[in-house]
């Protein structure tokens, strides 16, 4: 995985995907300019995969019903495996599986991964000092001290 140049959210979402989806053989997360954000493959193959994924996206977008409607997802069934592509805003994920996967499940896993990428980590809220209120123990100590 190309973890070195990634944000922690990307790494976590991708690690989760690989862990939960046994059907996915290879996957790459990239943006619409072809920059690889995460992959299960080495750098060179990931770049080739992202380039092919981008080509697939552009070819698919030529089949769209109108200019405003974007491609949400696609699956290609080939003789020796399947290819999946899911788009979510600027991020895309392409994945391959063995023949006859559970299509719905693969799409679900890929979308979950992209959703994980889209989630911005929440900034830490400043911790508020706990409100001062007398506790039973404190009162008991006070009682002990006075006696």
């Amino acid at each position, binding site marked *: 995985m190309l973890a070195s140049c990634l944000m922690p959210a990307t790494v976590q979402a991708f690690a989760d995907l690989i862990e939960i989806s046994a059907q996915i053989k290879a996957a790459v997360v990239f943006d619409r300019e072809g920059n690889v954000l995460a992959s299960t*493959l080495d750098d060179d*193959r990931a770049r080739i995969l992202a380039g*092919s994924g981008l080509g*697939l996206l552009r070819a*698919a977008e030529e089949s769209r019903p109108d200019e405003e409607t974007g491609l949400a997802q696609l*699956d*290609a069934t080939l*003789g020796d495996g399947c290819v999946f592509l899911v788009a979510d805003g600027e991020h895309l994920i*392409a994945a391959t599986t063995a023949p006859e996967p559970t299509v719905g499940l693969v799409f679900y896993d890929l979308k979950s991964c992209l959703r994980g990428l889209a989630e911005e980590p929440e900034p830490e809220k400043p911790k508020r000092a706990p409100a001062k209120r007398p506790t039973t123990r404190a009162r008991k100590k006070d009682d002990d001290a006075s006696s």
Partner: protein
Amino acid sequence: MRARSLLTGVAIAVGSAAGALAYRRAAARRKERVELYFADGSMISLAAGAPGADRLLAHARELLAAAR
């Protein structure tokens, strides 16, 4: 006579296996298709040979080959 029957049997078995393999490959090729899902909820299914399908399938094959 016996050797001839054996040879015939082997030839039939090999022929059947080759035929089954060829049929399986042809069936797999026929089954090749791309399904496109758009943001407005519409879906297009393109089987191999349909206009536009071959270009998409070529990209998909390239992607599958790169992943190996």
